[in-house]
């Protein structure tokens, strides 16, 4: 077995300016705990309270979407695992990325949806948000009923980016990346 090279992991985090990352099964309480650490970090950085709320909100929507999907699909803990990173880009802007295993057909549909949202300006995104808010819930759906992605897009300062890597078992690793303000 390959020896775990923590020094290499650390170097990678420093180089990519990753201040927080997580990989593994996530629970409701873990989302809160990591969120708490993220909030603390944001408080100590120079970002405004509004900017910090955007970063935190995007983190919450992405991770809760992953949890809802894994629950809905009855995935095992391992299959429902999330890969989450909060980093900064060259301009010092916060970047929230999150990925998880998704059935390939769902991943493709999701990517189309993200690409469509990425093409909208802020006014169009607001209209899409209000329309989704007014759409009746499907059954006893407890989630934000499709509002999450639009909310992420509205808080982002760059178009959302979705990528998918198809795996041999009919699933894909779906990753979403949102760039937030640095002020």
């Amino acid at each position, binding site marked *: 077995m390959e020896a775990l090279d923590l020094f290499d992991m650390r170097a990678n985090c420093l180089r990519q300016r990753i201040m927080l990352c997580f990989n593994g099964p996530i629970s409701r309480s873990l989302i809160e705990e990591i969120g708490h650490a993220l909030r603390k970090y944001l408080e100590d950085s120079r970002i405004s*309270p509004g900017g910090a709320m955007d970063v935190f909100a995007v983190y919450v929507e992405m991770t809760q979407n992953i949890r809802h999907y894994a629950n809905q699909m009855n995935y095992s803990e391992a299959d429902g695992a999330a890969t989450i990173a909060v980093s900064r880009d060259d301009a010092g802007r916060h970047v929230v990325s999150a990925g998880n295993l998704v059935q390939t057909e769902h991943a493709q549909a999701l990517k189309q949806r993200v690409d469509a949202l990425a093409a909208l300006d802020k006014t169009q995104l607001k209209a899409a948000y209000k329309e989704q808010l007014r759409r009746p819930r499907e059954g006893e759906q*407890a989630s*934000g009923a499709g509002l999450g992605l639009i909310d992420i897009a509205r808080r982002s300062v760059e178009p959302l980016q979705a990528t998918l890597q198809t795996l041999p078992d009919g699933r894909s690793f779906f990753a979403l990346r949102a760039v937030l303000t640095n002020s």
Partner: protein
Amino acid sequence: MNNLRIEGTVSSPFIHADASLGRLEMGGDSYPENSFELFGPLIDWLETYFREGGGPMHLELKLRYLNTSSVKVVMDIFDLLEEQHHGGRAVSVLWLYDTRNERVAELAEEFKEDCSFPFDIKPQQE
């Protein structure tokens, strides 16, 4: 009828509803995974209150961050108020926000756009 008192946590707001005063207060962050679980008892309480009498309902909100699941339920609550307002009941909302965080006032403004009853958004006095 009974009052409703739910204390807040890191991810859920406090909810204090008083039937004799016709008053509901909520404050804090709201990002539970399941917003029905949290707000279900409040919606039931409001529906009972509206069914049992003609008294007024005033909401005083100091809500800060809402995840989209909570936004959806808060919209449901405002829709209930809107219905009562059209039926002639006195309903109103006062949303107090911290001026350091413009996102909270923006969120409140977006809710207000869909409501025709008195809806005030004011800076919170420290």
